């Protein structure tokens, strides 16, 4: 048991180190985060001011928190649905992955989590800091929200990885997963609350969004960390994330096993 845990811990550390090799890419990401963040601030602040200063529990200060936390999470959450695994399933190299004495799903999630956690350092924290300096943000004073927020953030990262994992293994049946990947890209951004917080959605659209795993990846960690809705709400959101993660992980396991039997590697 301990040996197994160590293997996945090493994979996580390797993912962290892999991402740390591309520093200029991280800087580029930061510049993009800041630009989009300022544009989001402009339009969302205008919306709140047009509504008279308060809108569904948001003021300009808490909206700023939402904007900069969401921008900070961008590098950590997979927003485009593209994965190396999808390519490996398509060209058959995944057969080599199956030969390794680790679980394909667990190894992919561990490696991805490491890379995502690294991106919080050069991209996530500076985005939030720059936002705090240029626009100002409101953060909760109760440490409970930071503790729950950290848990929720990691859960969000793993939920996002577990969702794109499903797209990759769908390739065992449909080979070309680009259509699914683009659908994911659209849904994860819009329904996940990247552009507009879910609270501003019309009722029916908000219900639709909560019926998908996408808010668990982005909107819920932001809500938990910013302390919006109190500690009870934060705990409820973390539970919802855990439930989604359990469901996604189970489907992923089942698809991997079924897909493994279908895999046909052509050529020799």
């Amino acid at each position, binding site marked *: 048991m301990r040996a197994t845990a160590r293997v996945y811990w090493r994979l996580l550390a390797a993912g962290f180190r892999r991402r740390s090799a591309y520093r200029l890419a991280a*800087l*580029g990401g930061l510049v993009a985060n800041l630009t989009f963040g300022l*544009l989001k601030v402009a339009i969302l602040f205008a919306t709140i001011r047009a509504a008279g200063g308060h809108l569904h529990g948001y003021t300009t200060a808490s909206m700023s928190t939402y904007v900069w936390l969401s921008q900070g999470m961008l590098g950590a959450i997979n927003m485009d649905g593209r994965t190396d695994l999808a390519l490996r399933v398509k060209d058959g190299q995944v057969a080599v992955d199956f030969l390794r004495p680790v679980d394909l799903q667990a190894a992919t999630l561990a490696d991805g989590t490491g890379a995502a956690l690294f991106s919080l350092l050069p991209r996530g924290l500076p985005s939030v800091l720059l936002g705090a300096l240029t626009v100002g943000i409101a953060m909760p004073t109760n440490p409970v929200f930071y503790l729950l927020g950290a848990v929720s953030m990691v859960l969000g990262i793993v939920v996002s990885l577990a969702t794109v994992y499903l797209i990759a293994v769908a390739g065992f049946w449909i080979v070309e997963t*680009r259509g699914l990947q683009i659908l994911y890209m*659209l849904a994860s951004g819009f329904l996940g609350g990247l552009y507009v917080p879910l609270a*501003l959605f019309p009722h029916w659209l908000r219900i639709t969004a909560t019926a998908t795993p996408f808010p668990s990846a982005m909107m819920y960690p932001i809500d938990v960390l910013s302390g919006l809705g109190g500690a009870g709400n934060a705990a409820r959101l973390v539970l919802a994330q855990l439930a989604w993660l359990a469901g996604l992980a189970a489907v992923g396991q089942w698809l991997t096993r079924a897909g493994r039997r279908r895999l046909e590697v052509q050529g020799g």
Partner: protein
Amino acid sequence: MAELTGLRAELRPYRAVLASRARAQRAYPTSFAIDMASSLLVGLVELAEIWVLFTNVTSLGGMRFNQILLVFGMADLTFSLADLSFGHLDTLPTFLRAGTLDAFYLRPQPILLQLICSDVSLRRLARAAVGAAALGIGLDTSGAAWNLTTATLLPLALLSGYATFAALFVWAAGLQFFLLDGSEMTNAFVYGGRYAATQPASVWSRPLKLAFGFFFPMAVTAYLPAVTMLGLPGSDWLPAWLGWCAPAFAAWAWLMGLACWRWGVRHYQGGGG
């Protein structure tokens, strides 16, 4: 007459490549249909992002939803068409990292023209259609007067908008020679620019107005011409008459784009192949 034949002969290789790329995309009809559908969805979701805000308020930055449709329509139509013809310049870092750009240097045609003509992404037509529909509905319902101003400014703004977005792609490509794996840095002004262009620029802070109103002239591609057509007042630092200067801003964008491209091409030292 002889000049014309000469020009036609010179353009023949580009025409042949473009025609082959267009044929190649239609060779797999299902894949092409999925591409078109997803591109259509991209346009619709982008529109939905703005619509969601208008389910909470009736006016943003002094514009109602149908007036924003006019801004969104002009910006998205011209951006999609520029993306269709110039967007694949984004793949330059892949060529640079793999060292395959060297092959382009061997052919007796300008490298930029070769790259631009190396592909055409027909699927962007679907997204352009969303932009065109938004523009049509916006023109019809926003109260834009059908007069000489609209009749001259609309085509002028659309042409300039297309040219400006195209220049941004060239500008970004020129910088890729230095950035290599930092292409997200240029995404900030290319895709961030598209996002900015669909917004009412009156909501921007002053630094944003400097960056996207003048340096990367995004407000001039849609917002300012729309304001002029609707007879609305402009905003602080961005007066309505500036909409007429769209061609000048497009020229500025091309000047910067070509300068960066030249600078980049001279900096490139080959892949060592």
